[in-house]
């Protein structure tokens, strides 16, 4: 499989504080890559650099290169184009305060789709991909804030699908959800990885072992170890990784 994203010598600073230290890794197409590590280790920061959501924070400086299909995303690429290709699902479900339909149609409308029929089609397809079409097809006009947290999060995933991204970044997408909703989302991710490249940040090591192909362990802004998930969890090469996954800290 080809490398979808290449991260080369990336350092990131919040003002004086260095949040990422010389990160090098490649994310393969059609795989799920998990980032694990204790809070503040830089895993979310790295995730957010992949679609330049860090640009929104004042005082962020980044060096090194991140390549998406061999194009430097911090080079000529327009941030809006990048974010269309690299979608994101956030830690807390954040549907817009509008109807379920409008939430999914927002992305394509933003990118210029006007025809009602086309929008209908995109909304249905996106909701189907997020395995929630049957649940909500009769109440598309209902306010998205009125559905459950788990449904809201799947709606956000559907919303991410709506602009036809190539990569989907998920920042602890299940940390605010109950076990059943979590399971649904995990099943969904394994189901869709054939069409997308997925990077997920998770606090939950079981989740990483359940769904990811590769896992990266972060500590204090460094990528300590990056390997096949199975290998990383069964025979970690680094002592720190071992300490973390066996629950000695974190």
């Amino acid at each position, binding site marked *: 499989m080809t490398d979808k994203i290449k991260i080369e010598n990336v350092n990131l600073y919040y003002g004086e504080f260095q949040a990422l230290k010389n990160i090098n890794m490649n994310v393969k197409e059609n795989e799920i890559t998990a980032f694990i590590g204790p809070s503040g280790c830089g895993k979310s920061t790295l995730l957010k650099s992949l679609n330049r*959501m860090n640009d*929104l924070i004042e005082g962020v400086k980044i060096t090194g290169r991140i390549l998406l299909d061999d194009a430097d995303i911090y080079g000529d690429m327009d941030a809006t184009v990048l*974010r269309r*290709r690299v979608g994101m699902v*956030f830690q807390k479900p*954040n549907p817009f*305060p509008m109807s379920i339909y409008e939430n999914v149609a927002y992305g394509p409308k933003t990118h210029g789709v006007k025809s009602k029929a086309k929008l209908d089609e995109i909304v249905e397809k996106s909701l189907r991909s997020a395995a929630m079409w049957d649940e909500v097809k009769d109440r598309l006009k209902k306010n998205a804030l009125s559905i459950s947290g788990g449904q809201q999060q799947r709606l956000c995933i559907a919303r*991410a699908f709506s602009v036809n991204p190539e990569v989907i970044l998920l920042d602890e997408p299940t940390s605010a959800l109950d076990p059943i909703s979590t399971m649904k989302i995990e099943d969904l991710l394994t189901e869709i990885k054939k069409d997308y490249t997925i990077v997920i940040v998770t606090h939950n090591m079981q989740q990483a072992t359940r769904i990811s192909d590769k896992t990266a362990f972060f500590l204090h802004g460094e990528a300590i170890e990056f390997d096949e998930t199975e290998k990383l969890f069964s025979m970690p090469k680094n002592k720190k990784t071992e300490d973390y996954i066996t629950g000695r800290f974190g």
Partner: protein
Amino acid sequence: MDRRLNNLKQRKVKSILLKSFVWLCGILTVGVLIYILLFILLRGIPKINLVFLFGEYNSETLSAFSSIVATIQMIFLSLIISVPIGVFCAIYLAEYAKRGSIAVKIIRLATDTLAGIPSIVYGLFGMIFFVNILGFRASVLSGVCTISIMILPVIISSSEEAVKSVPDTYREGSLGLGATRIHTVFRIVLPTAMPGILSGVILAIGRIVGETAALIFTSGTNVMKNPSLDLLSSQRTLAIHMYMLAGEGLPHSKDMAFATGAILILIVFTVNYTTTKLAGRIGRIQ
């Protein structure tokens, strides 16, 4: 044991005292409001008749018709000028300006100062600048310009609060889909902030309707026989009509001042009610 019981009793007495004090204050506030409303409405409403509402003005009828129209003109035109300026200014402050930048400091200083200036000072400024220097004469136009400046701080500060209270997660969600900043502002932030912006507009309308000092100097106290949409003519709003009638000394002018007051109150009620309903509906759609 005994002491604990005593203590409990004391606390109960205290809480009863406090509760009654809270109730007393509540009743007092509502009571004063109701008293004022009844005082004006009971005197005013019986004097309202068709001629007063829609008739021609003369010293007999003292009709408020042209003043009603002037008031509505004043509200609409002032809002048309100051709402866009105020809302865009708020968007700049809340969404684009760097925190602590000089531009923000200057704008904030300006709005805070404008908000604290007594309205009669606006009146004097309007008279010198709009009436004399720009040559708008004592007219609705001069009044509108003056009032627009006066209500700008209200609109800016309430809109800024409303825009700031929109959760960042909405912005992230929109930007994360590849929307531009400006698209996010117009499609997500503004609609979400609309109820807050409207509440600022209600406040502003209240100020326009109630304003006298600033308007006497700018739009003048002239009363038209019949309503006129001539922006360059001097016209009095309802508040000024009421003020003038109260001081007129004609046999029935006091009564008619109350009638005008009653109309003013009814207009404010209607405006508040519809705006709140509107805000509620926008909120529900979201």
